[in-house]
């Protein structure tokens, strides 16, 4: 019986396909909104929590804890006030944790098909900590080298041996920092994280981009003719030509140096990896008492939970709106179905006259509604999955 009723319901839905399509689209649209938001929030929650869970502590200067954590995890929020390397040394000297300094201040120049990527200055411990491995080329071996995140490499088409320019801090300041023409040493494996979209350099290279370290040109060799203003027998005088970027080569690498104590050099934040739970507690204690005025130490997981609580509040508002919309849609669809049944009254009367029970006719109408609901749920799930795929990246950029 059910098989026959199913066949009649399918034939009826197909015959009245215009009406069926409108009802299915209305239902699918009503379901799509909350479903998409739920899926995006879940994905966002998983992604951000996973990264936060894998990062035990982040140390930065006092200020917005959310900005600090998001900058340390995603390299994308507002730049926190700068810490110095002394912060990293302090952590290391406590013996409670290892310290991984990050200096994320500059971005690459935009390429034709690729947006600018954050340049992350760090130490080799970061790659081990995040389980990042060079799968193409070689690791960073000298100043001015960089390794590319997997997605950035794929999108930009850059490969080991190519060069990549950092973006100048101010394009109109001739006396300011010049872009660094970095040599691409390698490409990292894909980690499905913000690391895939970043460019990594040694911390000292990041300081060179910042203008803290510099090299000296030698007025000799092939470039001599272009660089000399005068060359009398005693003195070589350089001309005023301005090179558009700084480039570190095997020849000039040794001339690059830093003035001052590197403990005073800037970092944006420090990731602290405690040896154990007790060390973590002790380190947190130190920061809440001894160093509270100059630096803060936060648990990313806690901060992210605070952020998620905010997102969930917004989602709840959206749910209420979606719920109201669903009620209105249900009432309207109920009306449409009622009117549709009224229009089909002759057909139902025929079935009754031939010998069908009222229950069978109710089953037919019910099956039609259930079939439309099933199709609407499938359509809305597919649309939500498609939206999640297309809008996931956009949402992350929008949120951070």
């Amino acid at each position, binding site marked *: 019986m059910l098989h*026959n009723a199913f066949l*009649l319901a399918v*034939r009826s839905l*197909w015959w009245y396909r215009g009406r069926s399509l409108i009802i299915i689209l209305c239902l699918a649209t009503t379901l799509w909104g909350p479903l998409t938001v739920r899926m995006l929030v879940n994905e966002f929650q998983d992604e951000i929590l996973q990264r936060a869970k894998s990062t035990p502590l982040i140390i930065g200067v006092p200020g917005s804890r959310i900005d600090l954590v998001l900058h340390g995890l995603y390299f994308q929020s507002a730049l926190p006030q700068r810490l110095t390397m002394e912060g990293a040394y302090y952590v290391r000297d406590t013996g409670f944790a290892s310290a991984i300094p990050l200096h994320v201040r500059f971005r690459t120049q935009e390429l034709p098909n690729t947006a600018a990527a954050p340049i992350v200055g760090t130490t080799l411990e970061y790659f081990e900590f995040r389980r990042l491995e060079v799968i193409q080329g070689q690791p960073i071996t000298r100043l001015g080298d960089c390794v590319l995140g997997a997605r950035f490499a794929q999108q930009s088409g850059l490969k080991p041996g190519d060069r990549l320019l950092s973006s100048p801090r101010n394009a109109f300041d001739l006396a300011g920092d010049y872009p660094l023409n970095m040599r691409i040493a390698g490409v990292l494996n894909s980690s499905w994280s913000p690391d895939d979209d970043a460019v990594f350099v040694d911390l000292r290279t990041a300081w060179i981009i910042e203008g803290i370290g510099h090299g000296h040109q030698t007025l000799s060799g092939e470039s001599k003719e272009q660089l000399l203003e005068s060359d009398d027998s005693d003195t070589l005088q350089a001309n005023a030509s301005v090179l558009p970027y700084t480039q570190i080569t095997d020849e000039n690498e040794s001339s690059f140096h830093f003035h001052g104590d590197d403990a005073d050099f800037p970092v944006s934040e420090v990731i602290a990896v405690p040896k154990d739970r007790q060390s973590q507690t002790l380190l947190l204690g130190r920061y809440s008492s001894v160093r509270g005025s100059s630096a803060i130490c936060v648990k990313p997981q806690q901060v992210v939970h605070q952020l998620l609580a905010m997102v969930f509040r917004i989602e709840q508002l959206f749910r209420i709106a979606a719920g109201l919309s669903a009620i209105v849609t249900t009432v309207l669809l109920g009306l449409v179905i009622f009117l549709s049944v009224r229009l089909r009254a002759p057909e139902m009367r025929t079935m009754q006259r*031939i010998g069908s029970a009222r229950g*069978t006719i109710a089953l037919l109408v019910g099956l039609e509604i259930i079939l439309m609901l099933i199709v609407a749920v499938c359509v809305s799930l597919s649309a939500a999955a498609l939206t999640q795929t297309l809008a996931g990246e956009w949402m992350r950029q929008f949120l951070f």
Partner: protein
Amino acid sequence: MISIRDLQFTWPAGEFCLRIPSLDVTAESAVAITGPSGSGKTTLLNLIAGIHPVTTGSIQVADTGITQLSDRGRRTFRLRQIGLVFQSFELIEYLTVLDNVLLPARISPVIAMTSGLRERARDLLVRVGLEQESARPVTQLSQGERQRVAICRALLTDPPLLLADEPTGNLDPDSSQRIVEILLSQVREHCATLLMVSHDHSLLSQFDSTIDFNTIQSAEPVAGGSGAA
């Protein structure tokens, strides 16, 4: 075949009252019913088919007292024993010709959808010359063809009683004649009983007998009736 005694039927609103003291229709006969519009011919067929419950009186079809059956019993009896043909065909427009013929089996568990039943439906379509149209939607058929499909639907279970309510009312003379021939062949070849309402006097000579509806009705309340006006 059909025995009606002291039948009285009143619509709930009370605007119409049908009273038939006595009516007998012999088995395996073709009987035409004539009478003015609104006199209650369709109502009588619906009462015999058990579509409407009678107010008082009795209707006996073969050995079954229709008036004693429950609503469910009347439906089952109708599906198995009675073939109904309507003036406006009453086909389901979203079904094909074959599926319309098979409709009684699709809407009730009383008739099992077997391969034999499908075969019978196809045979019926061959019999009425619509075998080529079996997969077409009924909306693509002419009026005469639609009525032939409706007749096939009525004959699906090979019912012993056929009730036809002005089946030729919307058809041209040639189509009307063909429809009557099909119905009468069921009576002759399959020993069925046919009760057909018709206004077309040119067709009446082909029937075994004709009932003038005015002559079987009573103006007064029938014996044992409730006396409703």
